[in-house]
Every structure is written in structure tokens, then in C-alpha cells.
């Protein structure tokens, strides 16, 4: 299949490439949307979960009697009640099995782990009862493992008795060419870089409603992957899968946290079946902060070999992920593999030895968060480049220019096997520079004369793998997605796809794609997403895969549908089907616009006036496509490398910051982005993805850090009061430029753009602050760059005798 728009379809206007207004907007604007918390079913009960307040403990006993005696309480369930529920499936063989139960049984391994559930007449009563269960719980506390060092100590308390350490995964490919480079290089240095723990924090928390009526099981859940939830629920509850229907209603943001199948997705349906009544559970924000996936907590032990002229000869990097308790499905290990795969960014640099380690601790399980390991790696690479530039007296921009991939170098195979199919690595940087240097000059002028304010610039040139393999780090599923296209008797088009919508505009994009692929207007296309009963089996929206997988599925299905439609039209026009073209919704013989037949006539013939169908053509006008990208691999090559993403987007981020030295306050004065996601389907939506991603990235660069007590592994945060999410007051002016480098072998040349915005800010901001404080020889190795962190670095430098001569 060509997976492009058929040249025999002609439009007055193409819709792909235009900022077609979003069809998703009216509901939220008027209050008419239905999110999971808005679902109300007659007879519905409300659930609350009882969660561990201990980081690591055995549960000795749970007294549920007081809760059960409370007016309005229907039932209290503990792990033993769910003995008939299967455990979550194990992961791929090289990742430690955690045998996750839907409710924690005798042992809890993080604050927030659910070990009991209450069902009551309303949420207020359910929470009263949950508090009584909590009060009736007797723990035997165990020593808590709060960080990587504690976890990897030889005498560490083990989280899982069936493991021989707390290490879940350790992959260390041999790279003899790297060892040779270290032996030959002029210099080496070693450094440790870290990325701090964050969480995706969609404005809508998670939630599940389950209805067991009519012998079926309907589950509404705020997920990014309804089919995956369906398979897990059916498997774990032992219900035939055709009797399980999973729907995501309007989803209030996901950002990766909603790609997982959580215990509540299984326990709420189980409780509904047990009680024979609909049950609703809506996560509250305090729960969300400890019971939805965390991410990003990584340490990178790096050695760098470089020459006097600034040439980086080789890098060794051991990337260690703090997985929290590891009790999450799918496993939380994948991001650190992505970190290492992407670490070299848009640079022509393959002499890299990367070891990947995942370690369990007594903290909330780590999982997916937008960026999925890419920002962590980009941070390491850009900090390395800045360090080498400083050590060798090389200009930071020139060094990047020397290293960036140039036109003609793609496809380029990275150190781990990632295949950069196309891109504008050097060009994006060059495009961004003039704006950045002008902004830098403006910032310097603004602060001229104030010796307490220092201005700096920082750079990040990243790559963003899109439509990745699910299988490689999970052992489940692969990388396909799906679409079914139907034309009804009235000529209306219906597209149903396995992708999900959580605010990114996937429905609008699906309509644009179908409109161009079938020669109709977007308004004629009805889109169905997020319903396992109405859409074909797909994997959902994550990994920046929505646009590409929608394009693949819709184009495959549309091409098949067009073949049949053309045969029907040819028959009605008494012509040969090879002569038939479609112009602005009318089928006709090429070169003679009349006579013509409409989609309604073709649809009516296919479904209603089937006696008029040509001989050998079946009734109906509905086709499906199950698309799998050609370049996407799921198993390691013979040399241990793999291209685990269908395509690779790229971009340049440049941050201009000012730092008030006396207070440590950092202001991002300007932020410049040049972004390349291949063919752009809807420019406004791509800009929206970039804007939102950048602000999430800036949150990681400057504010958000989910902290635990270093001794007890108790979370320090329970609300937005202490976990700092940026508001519009913290958002800098942002300039977004675009380039389009469509890869030749993807549908329409579409890559994907969901995550790139989050990637650059930690690297760019840390680089800019380090530049601003170059007089102190400060070279940041961690985010967030808080006032406290800046002051600590300045004090340490001044204590060591470094600083601007005579100024303080």
C-alpha cells in the first residue's frame, strides 16, 4: 500500500496541513462533556480505597468491623476477598517479576499502595469508612529503602523475597571501541548527573465506573489505552473478553500516567460484579500524587573521553532508574532504556557505552510520563557538551555545530540501533540561533548595570522516538494500531480507531485524514475513539504515536474502501473502474465530470440497493486497516541493537535566563523552539503540543521535584500546595518555529509530536544558568534549578575561592 493520498482523489481544498478547528471544543466550553466523574448510573455505589501509610511494612491485621457497621457501607474488601482474581501478568523475562496483586496482601511497599476498598452509598460515607479501616490496620514496619544507594547496598533490605537484590534489570552491552577511545583520548572526566522524580499530573485524576448489568461488564475508565485495559480485566477476572466493554469517556489529560492498567481498573469492576451493582471510584488529588505513576528519577554515572580540540571521543554512561516499588503494569523500566537509546540526541556521535539499570525502592512505582526518558538523556548529553566546551575553551555553539547531524546524513544509526530516518538536526539549530541570540542581547540590555543579575543561554538538540515498540520492554503487545472506515447509505463517513483522545485533538485529526483520503469534508466524518465495542483493537495513545498510527490505519482502511467504492461507482456509471476518479466528493470518469455519482449513491448501493451491486462485489462499505510501521522492531538485532521506534522527530530548544545571584532566583526570559515532526497535519494542534510540553519541561527544569524523606521514604508532598505546578505567571514568552522533514517510509511522512516539548527545558535551562554563572565556574548537574540550588552552588563556589574577581 502506498499510504499516501490517492492521486485519483481531487479536492478543492486539502485538509491535511491546515489548522482545522477542533471538534472537541464545544463540550468543555459549555460544560456538556462527560468525563468519568460525570457518569451516573441508577443504583450506583461509590468506592474509596484504603492506602498504606507505611513505606514498607507487613500488614499484620485489618479490622474492618467498624467500617462495616457504618450506616451506608455496603462492603469492605481486602486482598483475601480477591483470591480468585489473577495477578497482573509478568513482564518480559529480563525484568524482575513483581507478581503484582490487585490489592496488596501481606506486604506494602510504598505509601499509597491500596490494600483495601470500601463500597458505600456515597463518597463521603466511603471515605469515613476507609478512615476506619485505616485506623483498624496493624502494621509491622520494615526498614524502608528510600534511594538508590540504600537499595543497592550489599546488606540492603530486599523488597521482594524471591529476588536476590533490589535490582530489577541490568543490561550492559560490551563496546570495545569505546574502551579503545578512552585509552587514546587526551583527557577524561567523570561526573554524575541526576534527574528528579516528577509525576504527570493531569488535571483530571484517574477514575473508574463499572456496570455489571445484563451479564456484561462495562467499564468507563480515564485511560489512554482502553483495549489494553479490556484484555487485562478479562484475563484477571476470568470474564470472556467479548463480555467486557471498556470506554474512555472524555479524558482530562493523560501525559503517560494513564497508559498503565492500575489496580483500580481491575478492583472496581470486580467489586461491581460481586455486588451486582454499578460502582464508581474517582481518585482524589492526594491519592493521585502517590497512587498514579511517578517518573524521571534517574542517576547517570558518566565518564567522558575528549581531546584538546573539544572532540568528544567516547562516553560511558550507567543510567540507573529509581523504579519505586516496581509494582505497576506495564513495567516502569522502559523509560531508562529510552534514555540510553536517545541520549546522543541529534548529534553524530555513536561511540557510546550505555548500561541500563532499574532498581526498586519503597516509593510510588515509576512509570510513564510524557517524554518517557528522553529529557533525562538529553540533559546528560548537553551537560557533557557544555563541560567539554568549557574545559577545552571551545565555543559551545561551534562545538554543537561540529557535532550535529547534517543534511544527507540520514538515515543515521545511533549507538543503540535507533535509526534516525530523516530530520533537520543541524538546520533546526541554525534556524533557532538568530532568534535566540537576539533574545539574549535583549535580556543583557534589560539587565545591564545590575551586577546582581547574570544572563545566560542554554541549548538542547534532541531527537524524539515516535510510535515505539511496546513489546521490547514489556513482553506484551507490539506496535500496531487500527482504524475502521465506513460509508453509510447517506454518504456520511464514520471512522473508528483504536487510538485514544485525551485532549490532543485526535478526533479532529482523524476527521482531517479521512476527509482527504475519501474526498469528503471533515464535517461529513464522524469519529469514534476510545470504545472497545465500537472501535477495532488498538493500543491507544502514548509514545507520540497518535498522528502516525491514525494516518496509517485511516489510509489503509480508506484505500481498501476506495477500491470497492470505485468498482461500485464504475458499475453505476457503466464505465471501467480504472477510469474512475473522485473530484470534490463525486465519482466520475476521468476527464468528464458528468455524469457522476455521489458517495450517498455509492453508499446506498452498497447497503440498501444491493441488487444494483456489480457482480462479485459484496454488500457493505466498511473496511479496516491494522497498521504496523515498517521500521519498527521488537526484537534485538544480532549485534544487540534495535530500532525500537517507527520514526524519530527532532528539535532545538534554546533558553535565555537571568539569574539574580543574591537570591538564586531564575527567570526564563525567552524560550525558542524549532520543531520538526515531519508532515504537520494540523499546525495549531502541533503548536499546542509544543507549548504545553515546553511548560511541563520547564516545570521539571525549575520547580517540580517529588521528594521523599531520606530515612523513612515517606512522601513529603500531598497537595498542589507543595508540589509546584507552573501557572501562567511562570510561563515565559515562547517562539515556536517549524521544519518539516517527512520520512519517506511513513504514512504521509508523519512522525508524531506529543512529547518533544518536554525534552529540551531541563537541558536548556541548566545550560543557561550555568552559562549565566560561568564567572563562578558553576556547571549544574541536576534539576530543578531552584533558588536554593543556585545559592548552594554559588556558596560552594565562593567557599572554594571561585567567583567574579573583586565583585563580592
Amino acid at each position: 500500500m502506498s499510504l499516501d493520498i490517492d492521486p485519483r482523489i481531487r479536492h478543492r481544498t486539502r485538509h491535511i496541513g491546515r489548522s482545522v478547528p477542533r471538534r472537541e471544543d464545544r463540550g468543555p466550553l459549555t460544560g456538556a462533556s462527560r468525563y468519568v466523574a460525570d457518569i451516573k448510573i441508577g443504583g450506583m455505589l461509590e468506592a474509596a480505597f484504603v492506602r498504606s501509610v507505611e513505606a514498607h511494612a507487613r500488614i499484620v491485621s485489618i479490622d474492618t468491623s467498624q467500617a462495616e457497621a457504618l450506616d451506608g457501607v455496603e462492603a469492605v474488601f481486602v486482598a483475601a476477598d480477591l483470591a480468585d482474581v489473577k495477578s497482573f501478568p509478568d513482564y518480559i523475562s529480563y525484568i524482575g517479576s513483581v507478581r503484582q496483586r490487585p490489592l496488596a496482601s501481606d506486604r506494602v511497599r510504598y505509601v499509597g499502595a491500596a490494600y483495601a476498598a470500601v463500597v458505600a452509598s456515597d463518597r463521603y460515607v466511603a471515605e469515613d469508612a476507609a478512615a476506619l479501616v485505616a485506623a483498624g490496620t496493624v502494621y509491622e514496619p520494615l526498614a524502608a529503602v528510600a534511594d538508590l544507594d540504600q537499595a543497592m547496598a550489599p546488606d540492603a533490605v530486599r523488597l521482594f523475597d524471591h529476588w536476590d537484590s533490589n535490582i530489577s534489570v541490568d543490561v550492559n552491552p560490551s563496546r570495545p571501541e569505546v574502551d579503545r577511545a578512552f585509552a587514546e583520548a587526551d583527557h577524561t572526566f567523570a561526573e554524575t548527573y541526576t534527574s528528579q522524580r516528577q509525576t504527570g499530573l493531569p488535571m483530571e485524576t484517574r477514575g473508574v465506573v463499572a456496570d455489571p448489568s445484563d451479564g456484561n461488564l462495562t467499564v468507563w475508565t480515564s485511560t489512554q489505552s482502553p483495549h489494553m485495559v479490556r484484555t487485562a480485566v478479562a484475563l484477571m477476572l476470568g470474564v470472556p473478553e467479548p463480555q467486557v466493554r471498556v470506554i474512555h469517556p472524555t479524558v482530562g489529560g493523560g501525559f503517560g500516567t494513564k497508559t498503565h492498567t492500575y489496580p483500580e481498573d481491575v478492583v472496581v469492576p470486580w467489586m461491581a460484579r460481586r455486588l451486582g451493582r454499578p460502582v464508581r471510584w474517582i481518585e482524589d488529588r492526594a491519592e493521585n500524587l502517590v497512587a498514579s505513576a511517578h517518573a524521571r528519577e534517574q542517576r547517570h554515572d558518566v565518564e567522558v573521553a575528549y581531546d584538546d580540540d573539544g572532540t568528544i571521543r567516547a562516553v560511558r554512561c550507567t543510567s540507573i532508574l529509581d523504579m519505586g516499588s516496581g509494582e505497576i503494569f506495564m513495567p516502569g523500566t522502559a523509560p531508562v532504556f529510552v534514555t540510553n537509546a536517545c541520549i546522543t540526541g541529534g548529534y553524530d556521535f555513536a561511540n557510546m557505552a550505555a548500561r541500563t539499570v532499574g532498581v526498586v525502592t519503597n516509593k510510588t512505582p515509576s512509570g510513564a510520563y510524557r517524554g518517557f526518558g528522553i529529557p533525562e538523556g538529553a540533559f546528560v548529553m548537553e551537560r557533557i557538551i557544555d563541560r567539554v566546551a568549557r574545559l577545552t575553551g571551545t565555543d559551545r555553539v561551534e562545538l554543537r555545530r561540529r557535532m550535529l547531524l547534517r543534511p544527507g546524513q540520514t538515515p543515521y544509526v545511533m549507538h543503540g540501533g535507533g535509526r534516525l530516518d530523516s530530520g533537520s538536526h543541524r538546520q533546526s539549530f541554525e534556524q533557532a540561533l538568530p532568534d535566540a541570540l537576539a533574545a539574549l542581547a535583549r535580556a543583557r540590555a534589560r539587565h545591564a548595570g545590575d551586577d546582581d543579575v547574570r544572563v545566560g543561554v542554554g541549548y538542547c538538540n534532541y531527537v524524539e522516538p515516535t510510535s515505539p515498540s511496546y513489546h521490547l520492554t514489556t513482553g506484551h503487545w507490539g506496535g500496531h494500531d487500527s482504524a475502521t472506515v465506513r460509508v453509510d447509505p447517506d454518504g456520511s463517513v464514520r471512522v473508528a480507531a483504536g487510538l485514544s483522545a485525551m485532549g490532543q485533538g485526535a478526533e479532529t485529526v482523524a476527521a482531517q485524514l479521512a476527509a482527504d483520503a475519501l474526498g469528503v469534508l471533515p464535517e461529513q466524518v464522524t469519529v469514534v475513539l476510545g470504545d472497545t465495542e465500537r472501535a477495532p483493537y488498538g493500543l491507544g495513545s502514548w509514545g507520540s504515536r497518535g498522528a502516525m498510527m491514525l494516518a496509517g490505519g485511516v489510509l489503509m482502511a480508506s484505500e481498501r474502501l476506495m477500491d470497492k467504492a470505485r468498482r461500485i461507482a464504475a458499475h453505476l456509471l457503466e464505465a471501467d473502474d480504472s477510469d474512475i476518479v473522485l473530484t470534490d466528493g463525486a465519482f466520475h470518469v476521468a476527464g468528464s465530470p458528468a455524469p457522476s455519482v455521489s458517495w450517498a449513491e455509492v453508499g446506498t448501493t452498497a447497503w440498501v440497493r444491493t441488487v444494483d451491486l456489480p457482480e462479485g462485489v459484496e454488500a457493505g462499505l466498511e473496511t479496516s486497516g491494522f497498521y504496523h510501521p515498517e521500521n519498527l522492531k521488537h526484537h534485538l538485532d544480532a549485534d544487540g541493537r534495535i530500532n525500537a521506534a517507527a520514526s524519530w522527530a527532532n528539535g532545538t530548544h534554546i533558553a535565555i535566563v537571568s539569574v539574580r545571584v543574591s537570591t538564586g532566583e531564575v527567570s526564563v526570559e525567552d524560550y525558542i523552539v524549532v520543531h520538526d515532526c515531519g508532515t504537520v497535519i494540523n499546525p495549531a494542534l502541533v503548536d499546542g503540543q509544543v507549548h504545553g510540553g515546553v511548560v511541563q519541561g520547564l516545570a521539571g527544569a525549575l520547580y517540580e521535584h517529588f521528594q521523599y524523606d531520606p530515612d523513612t521514604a515517606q512522601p513529603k508532598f500531598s497537595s498542589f500546595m507543595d508540589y509546584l505546578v507552573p501557572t501562567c505567571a511562570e510561563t515565559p514568552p515562547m517562539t515556536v518555529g517549524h521544519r518539516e522533514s517527512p520520512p519517506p517510509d511513513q504514512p504521509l511522512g508523519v512522525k508524531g509530536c506529543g512529547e518533544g516539548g518536554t525534552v529540551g527545558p531541563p537541558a536548556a535551562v541548566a545550560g543557561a544558568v550555568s552559562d549565566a554563572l560561568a564567572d563562578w565556574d558553576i556547571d549544574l548537574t541536576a534539576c530543578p534549578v531552584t533558588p536554593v540550588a543556585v545559592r548552594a552552588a554559588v556558596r560552594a563556589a565562593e567557599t572554594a575561592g571561585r567567583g567574579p574577581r573583586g565583585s563580592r
Partner: protein
Amino acid sequence: MTSEALTEVAVGITVNGRLSRHRVPARLLLSDYIRDVAGLTGTHVGCEHGYCGSCTVIVDGDAVRSCLMLAAQADGAEIRTVEDLADSATGALSPMQQAFHDHHALQCGFCTAGFLMTLESVDPAEWRSPERTVELLSGNLCRCTGYQNITEAVAAAWSTNHEEGGTQHG
């Protein structure tokens, strides 16, 4: 819980012009009253501790976080929610709703009602400058848009929307 918490109180609350009388638990939050008793689910609850602003409604003319107020405290009050913004007869969006649509100022839409009600509660003449707009909106969290399109939408709506604010409120 205390017995006071389970005491029921009689409230008469006008929501979007319609007065209803109910007996509700004394501890019922206004946000839950609006969503579960009045049945208007356009008001969203994002944090339940008064920080994120998603549940903002207008109570007697002022923007209020409905998760920080009890239904009992709203006895006798007049409340407006997001469902009251579009023209009820024609379905036409208000100028601010339309500007949000035109400027792609919402993605998942969960926080949108809170932004719209915060904006609806003020006199544009006082809040039109970019600095004041940012100050006004800094009490509402959005995780999707990065805010730039929201502030652009507000600037557009208020620049063409004249002194009276273009709404019924005032």
C-alpha cells in the same frame, strides 16, 4: 465523623437562574452540590483543596472555588456555572468561549470551566493589561496548553469585547 457532619440542613440555592430547595448534609461541598444535586457536571473538581481553580463558579458575583465552600454556606446565594455562558436559546458561544475555541486555548478541557468562570467574574476594564490578565489567571492551573494560547484568547476577546465585558454579568 461528628454527628454535626451528618446533620442535614435545608438550603435554597439559585443556580443559573433556577431556584431549588433541598435538604443536604451539612458537610456537603458546594462543588458536590452543583455536580450531584443540581446535576451540572460542567464544573470540574481537580484537587479539592482550593488550589487548582478548576471548580471555580460565581457566587453572588464573585469567583469562588466551589470545593472550598459548603452547600450550606450558599443558602440564598445566586450561583452561575459554565453551563450559563452560552446563549441558551441559540447555543451561540459567549465571546470568551468563542475566543478560547478560535485560539486553541483548551486541550483536554478539564480546567476550562474554571478559567472561563474566573474571567466571567471580573470587569475586563480592570484586568485587560497583559500583567493583570496573568495575575488574574495565575490562580487557575492548566496542564495541557502551556497558557500562551489562553492569554492570547483573553486578549482577543477583551480587545473586541468592549467595556461592559460582553456578558450578562455585572
